[in-house]
């Protein structure tokens, strides 16, 4: 279909104008614009205006929305049906993506990279391994989304019941759990260096601390608590 390559390239910048009012609305219109060019000028402008309004979802799944909505516009669906379909897409595209990518694929790839570091891999190997592994999934997901959206149009919902999307978060969470358990002590050991007693002490304190983070994490993000603790330690190391 004309404009597919342009739309796919633009998908990588779908969040370029992310804001608290229209969220990804402008990004959706920006990505869809090459696909809408075959429309007559009046319908082209009406479609672009409609798509530039509020939209939200997971960025990697925006291909599904861009493809399906562009197909609906090209097929001449009524504006009311497109508006309803657009609203209905937001929720599923957000929740599926968040669970699959942010809470699944990203932590797994991150732990693989930490595992490589723990096993003694150098800087180049660790970085290249992480980026290649992560982006195989990332780019494949964006390409799949646009293809399935363009081919199915407003009948895209069954595609979101794909077994990979339904079972993927569950499998990835289990992989992350077991991988995290194995990798974290080994990564700590490499950072700390020689000394089993010190490594053991760090591990025990970290596990007790983690219980506190898991218990109170929602109230204070761990990275902000880490900043506070390190600030205190820096102060201690300077003035003692």
């Amino acid at each position, binding site marked *: 279909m004309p404009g597919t390559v342009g739309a796919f390239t633009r998908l990588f910048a779908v969040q370029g104008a992310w804001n608290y009012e229209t969220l990804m609305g*402008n990004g959706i219109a920006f990505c869809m614009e090459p696909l809408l060019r075959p429309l007559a000028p009046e319908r082209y402008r009406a479609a672009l205006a409609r798509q530039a309004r509020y939209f939200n979802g997971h960025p990697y799944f925006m291909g599904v929305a861009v493809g399906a909505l562009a197909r609906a516009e090209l097929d001449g669906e009524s504006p009311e049906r497109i508006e309803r379909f657009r609203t209905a897409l937001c929720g599923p595209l957000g929740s599926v993506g968040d669970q699959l990518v942010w*809470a699944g694929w990203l932590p797994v790839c991150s732990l693989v990279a930490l595992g490589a*570091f723990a096993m003694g891999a150098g800087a180049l190997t660790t*970085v290249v391994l992480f980026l290649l592994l992560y982006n195989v999934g990332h780019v494949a997901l964006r390409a799949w989304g646009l293809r399935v959206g363009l081919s199915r149009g407003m009948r895209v919902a069954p595609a979101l019941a794909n077994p990979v999307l339904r079972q993927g978060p569950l499998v990835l*969470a289990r992989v992350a759990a077991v991988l995290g358990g194995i990798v974290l002590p080994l990564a700590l050991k490499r*950072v700390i260096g020689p000394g089993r007693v010190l490594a053991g002490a*760090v591990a025990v304190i970290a596990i007790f601390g983690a219980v506190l983070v898991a218990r109170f994490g929602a109230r204070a993000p761990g990275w902000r608590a880490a900043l506070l603790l390190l600030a205190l330690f820096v102060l201690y190391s300077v003035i003692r």
Partner: protein
Amino acid sequence: MSSVLLNTLPIAVLGAVLGLDMVSFPQAMLSRPIVSATVAGAFVGRPGGGLLIGAVLELIALETLPFGASRYAEWGTAGAVGGAIVASEPATSAGALCVGTFAALATAVFSSRSMVWLREWNARDARSMRVALDAGSPDAVNAVQLRGLAADMVRGFLVTLIALLVLYPLSQQILAVWHTDAAVSRAVVTTVAATVGVGAVWTVSQRTARAGWLFVLGLAVGTALVFLK
């Protein structure tokens, strides 16, 4: 003049690219600290130092799930600042890892706030173009998107530049009077990072049946491997 000062502008440009990756373009996770800190370390001439702090920050970043409108640490610029500071110190420096991690987290506070300002600016920009957007102007759509991307690059550049100009001299002064032993310093920073990392993996595992047990099993295997090595 030290190498990091000579490299301030290239690292600020690197910070612009890495900061842009976090949300706007292309979200390929160049902004993850294990990448950003390592690349910044390579810019300064010691990628190994960058990788070390990158691994520490990655443990902390395991907690970050960048869900839409939530406010989270922006690790691209933070990793670049931390990586540059650690890599500019000799590998034997007692407090470099600790001070570098502190500087990276301080940068993350600033960069996290800067993302809120950027999103507010993007909203004002889109509002100012509302008439043209409602008329379906492709030029307006493209202009809002490209200005947003450019503004994010400028944001990343400025955050990195300002953070380096403030935090690099400060870190030099701190390290000049650092009194804690190297092993203890590393142990403290590792404990803090591990606490956040273990907590993050535990939290993820609690959302899935049996994953908690798999995590405990993995911890037992990992701990055994540490003591067998």
